[in-house]
């Protein structure tokens, strides 16, 4: 793509570094910004600068935070005996949105894959082990909520081994047929697993 202005070219270059943004979309965004009031761009860049400079990661769970310890970890209303282990900050948001979970989190910051240069030392696994060991039996259950991939399995397996002597219960989120999903369209592996790990059907209390 040829640009009439070096300035536009530089801005497009910056925008197109974002995931999911190509050169065309980047140009659209740049031209949009130019059409708006100058103040908008100023507050936009300020917000980004603040974000980059002031953002912190919770020292307890490694979730994104404005303070040293995040709002979930300091909350009195959360159940401190549960820790849900997730790969990324995205996953914390996804689980929070379900409103079904009231425990704490632990963000690994990735998933074990030596092929991609990510070993256990690159992830927040040791801090999880320390967290469980250091709280004098406060933590009773670790819930593994990792992707249903081979790397997710490996990471779950690894963490389970690491905490096996700490006297905590380790569970993993159920895998199965999506809510509202139809049986015949479910892939065979998921369906097979669902049959193997079937649960009792309880009549609702009347």
């Amino acid at each position: 793509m040829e640009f009439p202005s070096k300035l536009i070219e530089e801005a497009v270059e910056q925008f197109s570094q974002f995931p999911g943004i190509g050169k065309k979309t980047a140009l659209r965004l740049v031209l949009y910004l130019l059409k708006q009031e100058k103040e908008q761009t100023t507050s936009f860049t300020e917000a980004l600068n603040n974000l980059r400079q002031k953002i912190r990661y919770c020292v307890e769970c490694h979730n994104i935070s404005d303070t040293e310890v995040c709002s979930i970890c300091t909350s009195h209303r959360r159940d401190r005996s549960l820790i849900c282990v997730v790969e990324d900050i995205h996953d914390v948001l996804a689980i929070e949105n379900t409103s079904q979970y009231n425990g704490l989190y632990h963000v690994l910051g990735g998933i074990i894959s030596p092929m991609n240069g990510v070993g256990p030392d690159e992830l927040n696994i040791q801090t999880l082990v320390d967290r469980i060991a250091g709280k004098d039996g406060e933590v009773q259950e670790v819930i593994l909520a990792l992707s249903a991939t081979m790397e997710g399995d490996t990471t779950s397996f690894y963490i389970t081994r690491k905490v096996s002597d700490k006297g905590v219960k380790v569970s993993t989120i159920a895998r199965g047929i999506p809510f509202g999903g139809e049986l015949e369209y479910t892939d065979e592996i998921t369906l097979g697993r669902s049959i193997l790990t079937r649960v009792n059907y309880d009549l609702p209390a009347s």
Partner: protein
Amino acid sequence: MYLSNLHLESFRNYQSLAINCSRGINCFVGKNGSGKTNLLDAIHYLSMTKGSLNSVDSQNIRKGDPLFFIKGEWKAAKKGAGKGEQVQVAFQPGQKKLIKVNQKEYEKLADHIGRFPVVLIAPNDTDLIREGSEGRRKFFDSIISQLDASYLENLMVYHHYLKQRNSLMKQYGETRRLDKTLLAVYDEHLMKSGQLIFDSRRGFTEKFEALFSPRYQWLSGGAEQTKVVYVSELSDASWKENFKKAIDKDMALQRTTFGIHRDDFEFLLEEEPVKKFGSQGQQKSFVIALKLAQFDITSQVKGFAPILLLDDIFDKLDDDRIKKLMELVGEDDFGQLFVTDARPERTMTLFKGLKKDKKLFKVEEGKVEEIEF
């Protein structure tokens, strides 16, 4: 099921081509280099999602063209027994290869394998006997995968974890540090899927051999004893201990030195390896019998005969063995045949007497023309 027509765009030396195939015998004749084998390769693509000649998809695009496209239509062998199925493969560099059946795309290419089976017999098949164990593992893996989808799944899982474990070993080589817990996790994974693969390979070899021995004797007209022996480090009852003991070697060589990725299949003729002691003729019979056993076992499991592709093999065979092959092709329940030959007269003489639906195609510089038998 038979392939009723074939349509190519920019595939190898074909710019654009559409032919209607016979449900019985299809012969492609023409000079060397005219593009006969490319037609068989296109059929191979439709069945196996890849070529048999060149595994690099981009190198199968006609020179100067942006993409290639292959389409074929399968029809039920009996009239009115189910509707036809259209298979297409398209590839453009930089994009993912697209395989569609009845215009519907696959989520995983692996799901396609085995739906439209083919068996290819080609001149370089004796490599299977002469070359290393990798070719033999590939040969058997490809057959078992076509017959059992969970086998392919296990194989992919195994190789994925193997790659991860090898990366771990490489990292040890650089940092001299090894996470024993993580190693144990990969060992656990490899032992589990390795065991499943071992069981499948062992079970399959038995079934395969029961079909192979009679085929060899039928083809060679002799009574020589043949054997296909599955050789695996996992045959040892204490293999799990041996696997764990291999860790020192693994760390020194920075890769996994024990497991089903090192399996081999030994081919024996009268108790001796056919690779070392078999004559040229015996080796040829052996390898064709292997392919025919593949044909037999696929027919047995699928309940219909796979398409047989014979690529330029008449030059390499004596009259007796050609006669045997013609016998097979002439059988009533034999499916569909595609054959290439550089000598039109020979093909015409061979097939003329067979009372089967047949077509003869003259291939010349990327053009194909149907001619009279």
